[in-house]
């Protein structure tokens, strides 16, 4: 019974939400919307678990002075500090307002750090591209040529190089052709396959065929 209940609940919820795609009547649409609202509430309440887990996992290591214990203390201190500032020194529910200490911490501490991480992407793209464009096989050669055409064709320099040629063999035209036809076709093929995969996985879960996430192996 305890194993069956989650499967039945999943099936009911899944069928109601699928039905709401086809049935706009409020008798179906409103319960489906309500279920989705409940999901938001459940996810939000999960953050208590998340915070508890952070304290448990990192607290143990920090107290026992295990490997990298200094980082754990920095993490716990930062997290606790932001929570205290947010709960007690930022105007209660107005903690996200401009000028509140919590918002200040977010805007002037977290956002720059996030931007720093994101900006590393430029360097990683360069190093990954260097490896990707090494011509070792026919496939790699095709990839390199296509990439070269697209890269040069997307900048004014590409236009300058081939402006004297007929339009079909100008680099911008070739770059656009590559992006609009072969690339789009491949993307859509992957998207169709992935869409079917989504439906198959959803169906497996709704029918209770795939339920490893809700069972305890004996």
């Amino acid at each position, binding site marked *: 019974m305890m194993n069956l209940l989650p499967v039945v609940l999943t099936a009911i919820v899944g069928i109601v939400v699928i039905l709401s795609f*086809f049935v706009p009547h409020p008798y179906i649409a409103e319960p489906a919307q309500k279920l989705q609202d409940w999901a938001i509430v459940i996810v939000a309440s999960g953050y208590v678990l998340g915070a508890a887990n952070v304290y448990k996992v990192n607290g143990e290591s920090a107290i026992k002075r295990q490997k990298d214990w200094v980082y754990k203390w920095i993490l716990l201190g930062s997290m606790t500090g932001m929570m205290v500032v947010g709960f007690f020194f930022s105007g209660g529910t107005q903690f996200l307002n401009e000028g509140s200490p919590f918002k200040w911490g977010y805007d002037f501490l977290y956002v720059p750090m*996030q931007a720093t*991480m994101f900006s590393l992407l430029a360097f990683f793209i360069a190093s990954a591209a260097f490896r990707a464009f090494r011509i070792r096989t026919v496939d790699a050669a095709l990839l390199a040529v296509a990439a070269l055409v697209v890269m040069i064709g997307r900048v004014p320099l590409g236009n300058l190089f081939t402006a004297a040629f007929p339009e079909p063999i100008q680099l911008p035209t070739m770059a656009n052709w590559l992006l609009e036809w072969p690339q789009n076709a491949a993307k859509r093929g*992957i998207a169709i396959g992935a869409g079917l995969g989504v439906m198959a996985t959803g169906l497996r879960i709704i029918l209770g065929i795939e339920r490893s996430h809700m069972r*305890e192996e004996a």
Partner: protein
Amino acid sequence: MPARAARVTHSRRPLSFLDCIPPLILTLVLTLGLGAPRSARGQDSLVVAAAVVAAPAPAPAGGVKAIDVPNDRGDAIEVTWTPAPQKSAGDGIVTAYLLERAPAVEGPWTRVDSVGAGTHKKTDTVKSDTPYVYRVTALGAGGAAAPVVSEPVEACAQWFNTGRVSVLLAMLLFFGLVILFTLRAQAGEKLFIRRIAGIDAIEEAIGRATEMGRSVLYVPGINDIDDIQTMASLNILESVAKVTAKYETPIVVPCNYPVVMTLAQEMVKNGYVAAGRADGYDPNSVRYVTTEQFAYVAAITGIMLRDKPAANIYLGSFYAESLLLAETGFSTGAIQIAGTAQVAQLPFFVVACDYTLIGEELYAAGAYLTREPRLLGSLKGSDYMKVALIAAIVVGCVLETIGMTSFKHFFASQ
């Protein structure tokens, strides 16, 4: 008001000399000029000025229709009308339309909206199963035209969205195929599933980590549990945990949503139990890190650089962090296996990882690893649906080429 009237008028009619003179100057000239005595001159000139600058009211809007918006939950009415005709140069120019609603023609009328002269359609949110009439009044510099009233209309909730018939049929066909092959697999039929190199490599990668005495890092993507890619990833996690348990290799699963974390804990625990090593399960191996995207990246890259896991497995939904993770992992020399259905991130994984599960392979991985007949049946059903879709695409291309568009329109859902 006279100034505004003159401006509106001369913008549409052929320009005359008088139209081109700003109304104030015109009034001044007519008032002071012409050589008549001042008293009489003033009165006459004001009459002339008024005749020149006052614009007439526009003609009423035509064809006002109010219809229940189809395929909705019964809370919307669409009102359409045709532009107020300008039959002659003497008709006023429409500057706006005023839309009002009432329960009956007698009123009381409630203003719904006023829209610009170029708009001839408005969708109004109303109560279901309640009669309404609408009236549209053309407004211009010269005043308001007579309002035009629509027939009464009620917004009714529909039980089926007829714009999605094709989706329903495709879904029923797909579900039918999946159930058919699942039943056949349950009956003992052997189903052929092609090799997926990326999934086969998982055990190899874990074996390598075992030989090197290092851990396995499993990243279940950065979306919450409502993303089916995360669910697919968690289903694979159980099989991965089973292998790590068998080899007694530590596994680390950093999660960026608490609900994902709790499910991942269950999956890893199940894997250890299934391998007969329940006591080897470390609850701290699955941990919540943060929901913030780049803070999550910083935490994982930190784990990679400090702990140097020998195998990094990224399965789930990824965005800009895909290359940050994969390149950092590459720099540590780990075997990397990635899988996502985010098409834009696939090239990054292909470049930086040893194996990549592309799109649907991510969803197939759970069934492929467990080899459970019922799960394999669903894979087979997906394959046959793909054949049906390819056939539909080919037929659609042929029909479009010969000019028959009804097939395409049938598949256009709303």
